[in-house]
């Protein structure tokens, strides 16, 4: 049976991540943006495809009238197809500003990279609902010295 609801989205979180170089921070944010973009494209394709199929009907094809407030949340028990589409639409709408903000952070990241940063510094990135929002240049916890090991052994039974 064909699935009615398109499940999509990224696990967004608020959290603190430590990196050993600004290049690693940039790489992480770039990968984050690519993931958001992929999810956005996939979800907006679902909406776009439905709107084209149901040509002329406008937004009513993705707006369910089955929502009822149950406890502290809204529940749709009568129109799963439109209810699911509405959720996807809401997700797409919320992803747009997240993508623009992450794009902006990446585009202007050069200004962070041009700061006078001690070589031994590490970097603490704060993500707020998936958006890279703050960065701490930490000179108190430094990157460990490069690891190297040499040894001579014999093989035994």
């Amino acid at each position, binding site marked *: 049976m064909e699935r009615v609801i398109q499940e999509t989205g990224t696990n967004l979180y608020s959290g603190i991540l430590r990196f050993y170089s600004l290049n690693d921070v940039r790489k992480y944010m770039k990968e984050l943006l690519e993931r958001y973009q992929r999810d956005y494209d996939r979800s907006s394709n679902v909406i776009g495809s439905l709107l084209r199929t149901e040509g002329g009907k406008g937004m009513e094809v993705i707006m369910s009238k089955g929502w009822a407030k149950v406890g502290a949340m809204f529940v749709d028990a009568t129109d799963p197809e439109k209810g699911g589409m509405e959720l996807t639409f809401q997700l797409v709408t919320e992803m747009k500003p997240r993508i623009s903000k992450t794009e902006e952070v990446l585009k202007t990241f050069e200004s962070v990279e041009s700061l006078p940063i001690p070589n031994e510094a590490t970097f603490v990135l704060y993500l707020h609902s998936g958006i890279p929002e703050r960065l701490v240049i930490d000179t108190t916890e430094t990157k460990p010295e490069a690891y190297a090991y040499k040894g001579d052994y014999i093989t035994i*039974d």
Partner: protein
Amino acid sequence: MPYEREDVLEITVVIEDVDAARLSEKATENATSNYSLNVSLAERDRNPDHLVLSYSLELTSQPAMAKFKVSGSATLKGTKDEIRGGISAPDDNRPPPVLLEIYERIYSTIYLLAGALKVPHPMPNLLKKSS
């Protein structure tokens, strides 16, 4: 139920290059031979949750009947403390856990090559040479 991270260091070993040579026509699989192992580990990439090492292991039989050289990468994933534990030798006579893991992973390859070359098989465990 709250998520609890398992306290386990994950080590992934990849073989990137293998050289094997039969050094003596007199060599047989059953000949008695000890292998000496020269090891080199070097950091390739590091982040707080992972460390990538390049490794190079050179095994030479005594007397000289065969030589194996294996190199590649080992990735340690875990917390900073777990990674530190993985690369630190417990004492002067024992190898760091990551080296044991690398040797264990490559051992089957060397064992098969030794059989194909008709040279003595290396033993599966390591003992540090006294300096």
